């Protein structure tokens, strides 16, 4: 029982970490390409916050894996190396040495940047989700998850405000910006449903009191989207087929592209250091 609990805590925390890392990486691709300097800085600041959150989660996962005596626990390939010293997980091995199918991020976070409308809408969808999730996670029985949530929530509040403003600015902007926002909604909406479909480890986390069941966040999330969409002159989509699988490691081809770049150095020059 103890082992199962640790295992699920690891999976759950990895999922939280992967969401932040992958979206953070996507946002970082804007570095030097933003529409104006100030917004280039804004999106890369958000990337930095997300990658910082990912680091906190990965460090915690590594600690759990290394502490555990159960060889079944590290259900990740990221405890590589032959020497004794290297047979340990770290934030770096978890980010750089796991394969695509081991990543548990939601499909939404790996979607390509597209244009600015798509990027800010993706951020908006994710930030609302993160905002309500972290509010619950602050009350986690696991003190480290609660601490990371408390810390991250302050940053996510900025992200949510910033991305909401952009959705309104573009949705209720010019004819072209409105058109682009409509297209972004079409492209991203099929990946929003997955956020609220609880994976095994999320159900377990909710039951044990260290995590939240995402299905309980759906109403609040939809309420916020409706509120901002009405200000942005955008219709709330209905009856769109939803894609799922990311939380269980079944990803779109986009994740492989991200990892090819993200993990390139460690894969090509193993153990290289900065």
């Amino acid at each position, binding site marked *: 029982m103890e082992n199962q609990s640790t295992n699920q805590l690891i999976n759950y925390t990895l999922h939280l970490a992967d969401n932040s890392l992958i979206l953070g990486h996507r946002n970082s691709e804007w570095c030097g390409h933003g529409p104006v300097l100030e917004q280039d800085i804004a999106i890369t600041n958000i990337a930095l916050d997300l990658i910082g*959150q990912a680091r*906190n989660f990965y460090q915690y996962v590594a600690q759990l894996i290394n502490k555990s005596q159960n060889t079944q626990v590290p259900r990740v390939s990221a405890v590589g190396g032959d020497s004794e010293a290297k047979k340990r997980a770290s934030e770096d091995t978890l980010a750089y040495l796991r394969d695509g199918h081991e990543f548990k991020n939601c499909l939404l976070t790996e979607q390509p940047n597209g244009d600015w409308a798509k990027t800010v809408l993706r951020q908006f969808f994710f930030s609302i989700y993160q905002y309500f999730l972290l509010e619950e996670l602050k009350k986690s029985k696991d003190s480290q998850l609660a601490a990371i949530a408390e810390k991250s929530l302050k940053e996510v509040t900025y992200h949510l405000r910033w991305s909401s403003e952009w959705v309104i600015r573009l949705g209720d902007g010019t004819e072209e910006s409105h058109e682009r926002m409509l297209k972004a909604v079409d492209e991203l909406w099929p990946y929003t449903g997955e956020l609220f479909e609880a994976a095994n480890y999320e159900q377990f986390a909710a039951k044990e009191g260290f995590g939240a069941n995402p299905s309980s966040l759906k109403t609040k999330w939809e309420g916020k989207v409706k509120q901002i969409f009405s200000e942005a002159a955008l219709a709330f989509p209905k009856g769109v087929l939803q894609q799922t699988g990311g939380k269980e490691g079944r990803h779109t081809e986009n994740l492989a592209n991200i990892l090819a770049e993200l993990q390139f150095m460690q894969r090509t020059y193993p153990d290289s250091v900065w």
Partner: protein
Amino acid sequence: MAATTEEKILSVLETVIDPEVPVLNVIDLGIVRDVVLHNEDEVEVAITPTYSGCPAMDVIALNIRIALLTLGFKKIKVNQVLSPAWTTDWMSEEGKQKLKDYGIAPPTPKQQVCNEKLFSEEAIQCPHCNSWHTHRVSEFGSTACKALYVCDECKEPFDYFKCH
């Protein structure tokens, strides 16, 4: 004697500067949360990041270690704590004055826009000419902890250390 050692620790920590805002030390910033003196060889310091992704934290932890080595400690532990989350309310008044002298508007004492309200703007005083006639260019600046403003009076752009 113990009090003297603690005073020494405090003054040596005041020499550890934030590499990204080089007028503030770690005490001014309020990121040193605890110092535990185990014995004359062993000390433990708890620090908290300003933002989760603050890239200065690793350098700051290293510099705290180096500073404490100069006091002759042999076992130094620098731990990161996340809760309670850092807030600009922990910044010293001295630190705020140093920021202003350096040309960065210090954080406002009341948390006015640390919420999800849209399109709101804080009234920020220009650190150069003291005018309140300023406006925000971007709520994200050169580092995670700052926003970009410009003064409508003296026309100078400036950084604002945003309340958090």
